[in-house]
C-alpha cells in the first residue's frame, strides 16, 4: 500500500523516513535499535525522492524504510552483534542481502538489537540490554492486565519479544519500519515474529545468501524476513533470493520472484499435522488455536491429516551439539588482531587472545564455545558430534517421508506459549530457555526447510500467538500462498500502540500497515 502511495506522490520518501525516525525516537524505550543511521537514511530517502519525481523508481522497495539485525555487515555503519567483542566495529562492506535491498532503493533506518551473537530466544542477553515487546504497551494487553497498585512501577511487567531477532520483530511490529531482516538458526526469526504478532519467514537453506551475515552455525543459518503481512514477505523474498557467487552454499538454480495468487480451490491442498508438535508444555490456548486452524482448512475442503515426525524430540539435543560445535569454530576468528575488541595484554599471542575473548564475550557465548570444544574433543567426536550428525539425517528423513506421502505443507504452533514477562524469563538461564523455546522451530533448520510464522490470534492476556507453516525445500511460493490464504481467514488485529510522543502528548497510533 505504501509503495503505491509513494508512486502516486501521496507521500514522499523523505516524509516517510522522517516519520519513521520520529517514531523510533518515541519508542526508544523498546530498545529495538542499537544504531539509528539517521543521516544516511535521510540521504537515501532524498535520492529515492529524486527518482520518484523523475518517474523512475527502482522497484516496489524504492524509498521503503527497513531495519537490519545487527549481525549483518553494513558498510560504514557499526555492526556489533550486541557484543563487547565488536563494539566500535565499522563494517567495510555490505552483506549481500543488505546490498540487494539498497540497490532496490530501500532506506536503511538502522541496526536492530538481538541476543549477543544471536544466541538466545529472548533478545535479552545482548550488551545493549533487552528488547521490549511493543505489545506490552498495547491497549489489548493493558486491558487484560490485572491493575497494579499505583506505587508499583507500571513498567515492570513488560514482556519479552522472543529472539534472537527481537529488535527486528519489535521494529516491524511498532511500525518504525516496513520490513526488517533477521537471521534464523533455530527459530530466531519465527520465535520473535510469533511473540510480536508479525510475519516471520525462514527461507530454504541455500536460497538467500549468507555473505556478510556473521555466522553462528554455517550449516543452518539463513537470513530471515520480518514483515507485517505475507505479501510483503514475498516481495522481500523476491529481491533477496538467488545465487550469490560470494556464498558457495547458495544454489545455482534460477530464482524467479513471484506474486502470491489468491487461493480459491483449497480442496487440492493436503495439510499435515505432526502429532509430536503437541509438545509438553504447549499452552492450552495455543493448542486450541492450532486445532481451530486445522478445522478451518478442513471446512474449506482441504485434506487435513495427522502425520508423524518421530525424531522431533531429539531435534533440540541434536541442535545443541551441532550448534555449539560450529560456534566453537566460528567464534575462533575473534582474536582482537584484525578487528573488534583487543585486550591490552601483550605478553604473548595466546594470552592476548585469551584476555580479549574473556573481555569480549558474555557467559552465553563463552559457555557455548566451551561446550562445543568439549564435543569436538577426540575422545568425544564420534559419540557426540558425529552422532548428532546422524540424528540430523534421521530428522531430515522424517520430513522427506511425510512430504513424500503427499502432504503439501505442515501446520504447527510456533511457540509453546505467548510472550512471558521479562522478570519471569530471566529466572531460567539462556540454555534452558533456548532448549524450551526452540523446540517447535528448530527441526526446520535441521532439515533446511522453509517455514513461516503467521500471527493467528491473541491470547487471554492480549498478546499475539502465531502458527507455523513448514514447506518443502525451495517451495516458498506454495508455502506463502497457503500462509496468505490463512492470514486472510484469520484477520489478525492491528496492534493499538499507546505511545507518548516526545512532545508530551499521548496518542494512539495506526498507520498503513503494509507496503505492497
Amino acid at each position, binding site marked *: 500500500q505504501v509503495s503505491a502511495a509513494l508512486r502516486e506522490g501521496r507521500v514522499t520518501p523523505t516524509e516517510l523516513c522522517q516519520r519513521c525516525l520520529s517514531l523510533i525516537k518515541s519508542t526508544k524505550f523498546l530498545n529495538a535499535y542499537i544504531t539509528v543511521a539517521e543521516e544516511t537514511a535521510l540521504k537515501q530517502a532524498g535520492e529515492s525522492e529524486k527518482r520518484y519525481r523523475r518517474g523512475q523508481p527502482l522497484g516496489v522497495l524504492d524509498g521503503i524504510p527497513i531495519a537490519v539485525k545487527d549481525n549483518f555487515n553494513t558498510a560504514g555503519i557499526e555492526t556489533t552483534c550486541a557484543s563487547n567483542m565488536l563494539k566500535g566495529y565499522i563494517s567495510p562492506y555490505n552483506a549481500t542481502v543488505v546490498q540487494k535491498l539498497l540497490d532496490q532503493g530501500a532506506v536503511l533506518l538502522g541496526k536492530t538489537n538481538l541476543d549477543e551473537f544471536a544466541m538466545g530466544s529472548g533478545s535479552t542477553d545482548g550488551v545493549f540490554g533487552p528488547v521490549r515487546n511493543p505489545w506490552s504497551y498495547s491497549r489489548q494487553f493493558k486491558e487484560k492486565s490485572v491493575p497494579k497498585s499505583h506505587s508499583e512501577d507500571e513498567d515492570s511487567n513488560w514482556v519479552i519479544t522472543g529472539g534472537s531477532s527481537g529488535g527486528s520483530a519489535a521494529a516491524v511490529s511498532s511500525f518504525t519500519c516496513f520490513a526488517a531482516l533477521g537471521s534464523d538458526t533455530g527459530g530466531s526469526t519465527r520465535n520473535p515474529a510469533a511473540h510480536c504478532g508479525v510475519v516471520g519467514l525462514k527461507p530454504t537453506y541455500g536460497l538467500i545468501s549468507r555473505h556478510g551475515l556473521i555466522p553462528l552455525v554455517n*550449516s543452518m543459518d539463513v537470513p530471515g524476513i520480518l514483515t507485517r503481512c505475507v505479501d510483503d514477505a514475498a516481495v522481500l523474498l523476491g529481491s533477496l533470493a538467488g545465487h550469490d557467487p560470494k556464498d558457495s552454499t547458495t544454489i545455482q538454480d534460477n530464482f524467479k520472484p513471484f506474486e502470491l495468487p489468491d487461493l480459491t480451490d483449497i480442496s487440492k491442498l493436503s495439510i499435515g499435522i505432526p502429532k509430536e508438535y503437541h509438545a509438553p508444555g504447549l499452552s492450552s490456548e495455543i493448542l486450541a488455536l492450532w486445532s481451530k486452524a486445522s478445522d478451518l482448512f478442513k471446512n474449506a475442503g482441504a485434506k487435513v491429516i495427522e502425520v508423524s515426525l518421530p525424531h522431533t524430540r531429539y531435534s533440540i539435543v541434536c541442535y545443541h551439539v551441532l550448534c555449539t560445535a560450529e560456534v566453537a569454530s566460528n567464534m575462533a576468528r575473534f582474536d582482537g588482531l584484525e578487528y573488534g575488541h583487543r585486550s591490552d595484554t601483550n605478553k604473548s599471542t595466546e594470552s592476548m587472545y585469551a584476555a580479549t575473548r574473556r573481555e569480549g564475550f558474555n*557467559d552465553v557465548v563463552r559457555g557455548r564455545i566451551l561446550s562445543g570444544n568439549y564435543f569436538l574433543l577426540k575422545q568425544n567426536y564420534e559419540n557426540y558430534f558425529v552422532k548428532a550428525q*546422524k540424528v540430523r539425517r534421521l530428522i531430515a528423513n522424517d520430513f522427506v517421508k511425510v512430504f513424500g506421502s503427499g502432504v503439501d505443507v505442515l501446520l504447527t504452533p510456533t511457540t509453546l506459549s505467548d510472550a512471558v514477562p521479562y522478570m519471569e524469563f530471566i529466572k531460567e538461564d539462556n540454555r534452558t530457555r533456548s532448549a524450551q523455546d526452540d523446540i517447535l522451530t528448530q527441526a526446520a533448520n535441521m532439515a533446511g526447510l522453509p517455514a513461516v510464522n503467521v500471527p493467528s490470534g491473541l491470547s487471554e492476556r492480549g498478546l499475539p500467538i502465531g502458527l507455523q507453516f513448514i514447506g518443502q525445500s525451495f517451495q516458498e511460493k506454495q508455502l506463502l500462498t497457503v500462509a496468505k490464504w490463512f492470514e486472510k481467514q484469520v484477520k489478525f488485529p492491528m496492534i493499538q500502540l499507546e505511545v507518548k510522543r516526545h512532545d508530551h502528548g499521548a496518542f494512539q497510533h495506526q498507520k498503513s500497515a503494509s507496503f505492497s
Partner: protein
Amino acid sequence: QKVTVEVLDHLEHLALVDFRDAEGIERLQKAIQFADQLHEVNTDGVEPMDSVLEDRCLYLREDDVTEGNCTNELLKNAREKVEEYFVAPPGNIPLPKLEERETFLQGS
C-alpha cells in the same frame, strides 16, 4: 561422571576462553548431560549429514582475481598496526600452565 580438571584446563587452552566461575563449569556439566540424550537414538547404518545440500554438487569458478586492493579498509578496524601489517604480540609462547595462570580452575 564429572568432567575432570585436566579436561577443563585442556578446554580453556583449546578455546582460549575461561570458565570464570563455578556456574561456568556447572553449565558445561548440564550441557553434557543434555547432550547424552542423543545416545537413546538408534543410528545404526545411518550416515552423518554434513549439509542439507548434499545432493547437489559443489561448483567451481574460474581462478580469476575479481576483488581486492582494499588494504586501507581492512586495516581501519585493527587496533595495532604498522604500515600494512597487523601487529601481534610474540607467538610460540603457550598459555601458562594451570598452576601459573589466573584461572578459576586453580582452586578445583
